């Protein structure tokens, strides 16, 4: 069984990002939405942690949230962009979803 973890908080402001990375298991997926997308931006401490986690975990980001924050072109390699339909697919493809609020 694998899980989908969603993160909607900036890694600079809240501990949700770090707490999620502590609890994500191999084979699971992380979807960054809302302010969570800042966690995948180049040149930040969060992205370094995320890159390390990406050996075991698939990382996605919601495209509309990336663009509304002007972060398009700034994400680290390996983060896959999805639209809202892709978000729905990730939910149905995983056994359960945990929102790191």
């Amino acid at each position, binding site marked *: 069984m694998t*899980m989908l973890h969603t993160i909607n908080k900036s890694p600079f402001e809240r501990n949700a990002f770090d707490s999620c990375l502590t609890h*994500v*298991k191999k084979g699971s997926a992380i979807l960054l939405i809302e302010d969570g997308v800042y966690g995948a931006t180049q040149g930040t401490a969060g992205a370094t942690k995320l890159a390390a986690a990406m050996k075991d975990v698939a990382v996605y980001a919601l495209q509309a949230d990336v663009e509304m924050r002007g972060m398009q072109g700034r994400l680290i390699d390996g983060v896959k962009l999805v639209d809202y339909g892709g978000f729905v697919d990730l939910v149905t493809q995983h056994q359960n979803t*945990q929102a790191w609020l």
Partner: protein
Amino acid sequence: MTDEMMEEGGKIKKFLYINRKAPHGTIYALESLEVVLISAAFEQDVSLAFIDDGVYEIVKGQDTKGAEIKNFSPTYRALEGYDIEKLYVEKESMDARGLTEKDLLVPVKVLTAKEMADLMESQDVVMSF
């Protein structure tokens, strides 16, 4: 799905309520507890997890008189009467806050973060507050 059929034809699912926020500063802890109490009537397989600031929810000695707010912390003690007995607290979260099991209102099982991650993956429904 790990559904089992009950005699009535209902499903029994594993519900995990994850509490990550401190009590009082926001209402999430209190309203999470209200969900948990209601869930007891549905005869599901219910677990509660306290991680990060959520461990503060079940700290002893909460006294809300000075702030003129209702004290809901004794309600955690009532969970047992609703047959909600699977309470898990994360060790790393307690350690970082200088807390031990003796500081808590209710008997709990202490899990490491790794064990907590295993618990999450074994659930059908995870609600986070």
